[in-house]
């Protein structure tokens, strides 16, 4: 399920998208992660989402921190520039990149250690600044790369492979993202591609800070009995709040649902997010409702997944800064340098 097939013979399934690109054009190098690692499934979902959205791969910038999860950008979108930065600091690097050129699509990939432990501050501040990005945390509750220590998202009472019980409270990054003002918040499971792919698509189309917490079991260190991030545990406790269909502006919208059972949210670029409701009391466009639902279901021992909150008209960092509409990195000497005459005036004022 997680192995990325790289054989080069043409398969009838390789139908091109609107750009004339096949799914293969969105792939990257062969994964070196453990066979069965949840992270590989997320890479496959990213590939699928970008392909289905007809995104030109080279117009995506993929950034990450350090960890098994943060290695994955090598394994998708080979035609895109990637940046594997330092542990826990992807958000600042992504923010800077976004400042330089607002015209690219920014995809940040991180781990739970990377974002909830060492990088909690950068996670929080990039969200509250409203950086236009899709920020995916591949959450396995452990440090995979350093061989299985508990991370800050490990549930209290969860058991390590060697038997230790985690006694610290977990950080719920979804709850934090909601509190910090993320304008798109989702949670999913690497084992649920049908849920994950549309969620990533909607996030990539969201013109603001989009955060996805994706539970992604570590088969090497955290997939055993007693772990709350194992495939079996997550399958058993995962409660989806909705089923999402992403309908691009060009697509024909058909009403195929019972009135009242679904809501449609039109994002800024015309993309329609159709949410078939599974949880009665949850309104995904109401932050308070989303927070309440999350806490209630958490208290009941459930892991809430789906599109938990979306603001269809978000503001982003560039709106706050008042920067020009185009990329700053495209400005030339005439736009940037005030010139000798202006400098003479500066001199005169300093005498």
């Amino acid at each position, binding site marked *: 399920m997680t192995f990325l097939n790289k054989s080069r013979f043409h398969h009838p399934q390789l139908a091109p998208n609107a750009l004339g690109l096949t799914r293969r054009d969105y792939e990257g190098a062969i994964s070196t992660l453990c066979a069965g690692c949840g992270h590989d499934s997320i890479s496959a979902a990213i590939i699928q989402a970008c392909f289905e959205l007809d995104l030109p*791969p080279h117009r995506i910038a993929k950034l990450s921190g350090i960890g098994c999860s943060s290695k994955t950008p090598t394994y998708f979108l080979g035609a895109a*520039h990637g940046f*594997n930065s330092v542990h826990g600091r992807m958000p600042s690097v992504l923010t800077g990149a976004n400042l*330089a050129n607002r015209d690219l699509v920014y995809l940040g990939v991180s781990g739970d250690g990377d974002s909830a432990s060492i990088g909690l501050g*950068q996670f929080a501040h990039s969200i509250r600044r409203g950086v236009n990005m899709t920020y995916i945390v591949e959450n396995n509750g452990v440090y995979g790369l350093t061989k299985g220590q508990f991370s800050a998202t490990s549930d209290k009472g969860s058991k390590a492979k060697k038997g230790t019980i985690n006694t610290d409270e977990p950080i719920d990054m979804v709850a934090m993202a909601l509190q910090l003002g993320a304008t798109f918040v989702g949670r999913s499971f690497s084992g649920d591609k049908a849920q994950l792919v549309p969620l990533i698509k909607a996030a990539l189309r969201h013109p603001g800070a989009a955060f996805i917490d994706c539970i992604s079991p570590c088969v090497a260190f955290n997939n055993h009995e007693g772990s709350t991030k194992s495939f079996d545990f997550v399958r058993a406790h995962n409660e989806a709040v909705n089923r999402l269909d992403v309908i691009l502006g060009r697509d024909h919208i058909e009403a195929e649902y019972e009135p009242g059972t679904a809501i449609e949210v039109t994002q800024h670029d015309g993309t329609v997010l159709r949410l078939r409701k599974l949880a009665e009391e949850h309104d995904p466009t109401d932050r308070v409702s989303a927070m309440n639902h999350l806490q209630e279901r958490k208290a009941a021992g459930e892991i809430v997944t789906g599109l938990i909150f979306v603001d269809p008209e978000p503001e982003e960092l560039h709106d706050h800064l008042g920067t020009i509409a185009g990329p700053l990195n495209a400005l030339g000497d005439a736009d*940037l340098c005030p010139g000798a005459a202006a400098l003479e005036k500066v001199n005169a004022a300093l*005498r």
Partner: protein
Amino acid sequence: MALTATNDFVVKFANVNGSGSASANQLFAKSILRMGIPIASRNIFPSNIQGLPTWFEVRVSGAGHLGRRGGVDLMVAMNPQTWDRDVAEIEPGGYLFYDSTRPIPQSRFRQDITVIGVPLTAMCNEAYDDPRQRQLFKNIIYVGALSALLDMDPEAPAQLIREQFRAKEKLIQPNLDALKMGRDWAMANLSCPLGLTLARMDAVGDRIFTDGNSAAALGAVYGGATVCAWYPITPSTSLAEGYERYARKFRTNPDGTKRYAIVQAEDELASIGMVIGAGWNGARAFTATSGPGISLMGEFVGLAYFAEIPAVIFDVQRAGPSTGMPTRTQQSDVLAAAYASHGDTKHVVLLPEDPHECFIMGADAFDLADRLQTPIFVLLDLDIGMNDWLCEPFHWDDARRMDRGKVMTAEELEEGKTFGRYLDVDGDGIPFRTWPGTHPTKGSFFTRGTSRDRYARYTEEGAAYVDNMQRLLRKFDTAKQIVPRPVETHAKQPTPLGVIFYGSTSAAMREALEALEADGIHLDALRVRAFPFHDDVLDFVRRHERVFLVEQNRDAQLRTLVVNEGEIDPSRIVPVLHYDGTPITARFIRAAIADRASATNVIPLSRMGAAE
């Protein structure tokens, strides 16, 4: 005996912070400049804010000496909290100017100074009803009184007031009146002038009076920086604020949108992270910080070095280690900058001497960063950064264009030009890069802090790693040729002695060299302007039997760098170190060098005299 001097004395103002004294003191200082007389001014503001003391020191120097002199000839004591130490600081024969409204016991004065009392508070209370006005105009009144006492041309401050309030004309007359009130009172009640006088001359020329932080910020605007990410820390804060001010003025479109972006980050890690992200993505980006920030940025600086990403870091140095003396000056981040981060790393460091050079290097740093694809440190210090200096005016050549370095374009990729991100195509150690989003199928690569081959493919193979590390050394060698060269000045006669200095030490050094020459101690002098050292630096050391290296830190950091990088016998370089947090003075350098030089083969003073 009361001191007498014309255009050569030090006035120090002791004020309470927030009392509006800063603009009055500025008015005093600039009035002297308008009389064509060079000055050097310094703010002294302790980090401990009890009693809110601040001091402002003006050295009047017809001879043009811009370093701190040391000692105070006239103290303007406006802060009762610091009275005793202020009075104690006055040179024997000096003058004390104070507000005589409330009587001060005789015991708190000194016998060997001249005391000048002006009832400033009483005058203000009589003239103004509004307490805020009383406060503000009190400052202008003392400037007026001082103008009479020092024989200042009254037209100089009057004209400055008219210029300053051009946009708020209502304020001109009241300020002029306050100035006149002080002046008239002094003329009528005191014997004016004192032994210290100002006499109009023509020694300022077209020089400007500004601080290094603003100048570096202006350099960043001229150098094309579009992204600034920073976290507040004294003494660097006014650099980021200066960038904001100049960028708003010069880079705002008619519709209000901005051709720049400034983010106040959550810490220095995020600041440098944003700078690196922006640099990677083709924008010119910088941060401004001080020592503690440099320490925090360590890991990221190594990434930028190894992954070869342009970045500019302005470090306005203060006294360390740790929080040290955060409002005092030092040159103590030299090693921290030059060798920042873990593993084998070396960085380009620029060392401006004054605001004029802060502007030049502030702009050049961005060309260097792009050409060399690496972090560039610009080391200011509190003395240059936060004080106004008299310096050469800024110049710009309109024909100049940004040098973006080796960036491969979509067209070049399309033509089939070979792209290897870490491939040294022409021997200078600098590879081509591409910006994200350049071409649909060609030129993309993965940037990482892990080892990779010439085509940016991850590898842990030893040979590929060594190949890359060697190329980085080649690149550093290239840097040596393009960073600012050292500036040498020769002694009036051949000498086996040399002196090396850098940064804010320059002004004091120049003055000390003149004095030492008069003492018969001749030194060739070399001002180092950058690391890596140009061959001229090591050559200078080899050409002299003994070289003094004057710097403002405890551990002789630049000396360590010279010894280490040039493989020089340490005994040949004598450290002259000043690190108490105050700016170095010519008196200090002169004494330190004279002391040590007399032990070597200088012509003895008596023989000098005989030869004349």
